[in-house]
């Protein structure tokens, strides 16, 4: 039986921090949303929109209180510390499962009360992306820092890949259960149905949402598993899997961009377009997560093997700027909503992220990305990994980001989408070319083996 005391101990600490972090972030978003809802409506029924955030906060408080009650009063010896670690490790897994069930049950409720078209964009997708991007990245990075593989229990098994696919199969069954709960909740929820919330349309929306979420999570898990296995087998941190991660990200982004543009161009109504584009945005979240995951992994390994603090710091700044941008977007949406918001027919508010807020956020992100990537390239040039001419790439990158920032002030949404997609794909491709160049060079020289 697999039981690794070191991993359990570290996993417990990481899980405890993850629970606290998710509760704090949710509390912040909860407070902002309460302020927006109460400002716009006297009807407290709209507060039902806050079920997901409320559940995360409540679960955090319950787990933390239980942990304190069980382990704080006793003197901390080796045995108690081990038990505490196991408790928090299991608590996080249980919390994620229970919360996903609550989210599944609450999703249709919110479709009935409030504006169904803007619900997913303004809420469900955002809380998901914010938690994945902040807590998820923290968990991945902490695991790596403590030499723990995500798939540690199956890492040395010969049937590793089939175990990974079995886990994806289990995830599929879980999503089927979630869809069943959402479906049942949609059918049996006892509140009057709004006229605009047609049942088949809502079922279709939820089905698409779960399908995309499943594709997103299983792809991320598969790529991460390959990355880990490759690193475990060869000790080459720039492995083929790392390149596959980037290549798949580019492909998914291209598919996302194509579908978004087609939806925008061909949808019969604006509401329908917004609904579909919101569901598709999960794919974009995937690309962000894969990109940040890759950068963190790459930076950490480079620090460990090549001892280049400049490179690693640059990578972390570039990755962090993306995380901050995504979380900042979510928080700024609610702050803006508090001051400028419109009450929609049958809905409560409209997500009003105006161009100046977006522009300010993108400029901040641009500066930090520029700083981070400049440090990366300086480190690579100093270590004679790449040629000085690659600085042209970063100048192009800055120009692209600048064009993107400018585009966000424009009103022609379709054009903005197309240019934005081209810019993102160009940046990812540039990263891919640099990484594959370094990987090829080092594989030939065989210098990247772990000591």
């Amino acid at each position: 039986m697999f039981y690794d005391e070191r991993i359990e101990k570290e996993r417990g600490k990481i899980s405890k921090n993850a629970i606290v972090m998710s509760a704090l972030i949710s509390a912040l978003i909860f407070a902002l949303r309460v302020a927006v809802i109460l400002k716009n409506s006297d009807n407290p029924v709209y507060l039902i929109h806050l079920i997901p955030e409320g559940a995360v906060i409540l679960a955090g408080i319950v787990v933390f209180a239980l942990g304190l009650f069980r382990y704080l009063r006793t003197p901390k010896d080796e045995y108690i510390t081990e038990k505490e670690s196991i408790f928090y490790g299991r608590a996080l897994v249980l919390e994620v499962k229970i919360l996903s069930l609550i989210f599944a049950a609450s999703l249709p409720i919110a479709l009935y009360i409030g504006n169904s078209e803007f619900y997913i964009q303004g809420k469900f997708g955002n809380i998901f992306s914010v938690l994945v991007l902040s807590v998820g990245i923290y968990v991945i990075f902490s695991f790596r820092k403590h030499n723990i593989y995500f798939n540690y229990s199956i890492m040395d098994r010969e049937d590793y890949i089939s175990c990974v696919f079995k886990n994806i199969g289990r995830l599929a069954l879980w999503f089927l259960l979630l869809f069943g709960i959402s479906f049942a909740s949609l059918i049996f929820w006892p509140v009057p149905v709004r006229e605009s919330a047609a049942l088949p349309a809502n079922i279709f929306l939820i089905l698409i949402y779960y399908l995309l979420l499943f594709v997103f999570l299983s792809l991320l898990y598969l790529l991460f598993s390959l990355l880990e296995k490759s690193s475990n087998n060869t000790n080459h941190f720039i492995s083929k899997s790392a390149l596959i991660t980037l290549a798949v990200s580019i492909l998914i982004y291209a598919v996302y961009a194509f579908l978004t543009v087609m939806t925008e161009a061909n949808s019969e109504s604006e509401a329908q377009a917004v609904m579909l584009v919101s569901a598709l945005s999960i794919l974009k979240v995937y690309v962000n997560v894969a990109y940040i995951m890759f950068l963190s992994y790459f930076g950490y390994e480079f620090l460990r093997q090549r001892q280049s603090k400049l490179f690693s710091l640059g990578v972390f700044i570039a990755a962090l700027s993306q995380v901050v941008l995504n979380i900042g977007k979510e928080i700024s949406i609610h702050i803006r909503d508090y001051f400028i918001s419109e009450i929609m027919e049958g809905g409560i508010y409209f997500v009003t992220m105006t161009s100046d807020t977006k522009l300010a956020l993108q400029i901040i992100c641009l500066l930090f990305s520029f700083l981070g990537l400049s440090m990366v390239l300086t480190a690579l040039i100093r270590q004679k990994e790449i040629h000085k001419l690659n600085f042209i790439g970063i100048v192009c990158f800055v120009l692209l980001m600048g064009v993107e920032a400018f585009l966000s002030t424009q009103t022609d949404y379709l054009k903005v989408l197309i240019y934005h997609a081209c810019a993102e794909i160009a940046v990812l491709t540039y990263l891919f070319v640099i990484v594959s160049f370094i990987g090829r060079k080092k594989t030939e020289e065989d210098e990247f083996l772990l000591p």
Partner: protein
Amino acid sequence: MNEKMRKARTLKKISQTDLAKKIGVSRQTINMIETGTYNPTIALCVKICRELGVTLDELFWEG
């Protein structure tokens, strides 16, 4: 650096992966014990000693 453990393991001709599999831990944990970056509990020490056919004193006592 726990050279005694590395020597005992190589004498037995067992790889880190095989030892890890036999006692139900990860390869990284075995590596970290050998490089001195992780201090195992007595329960894990006993398991390692049993697999390598040595006593606790022989493997972990630094006196």
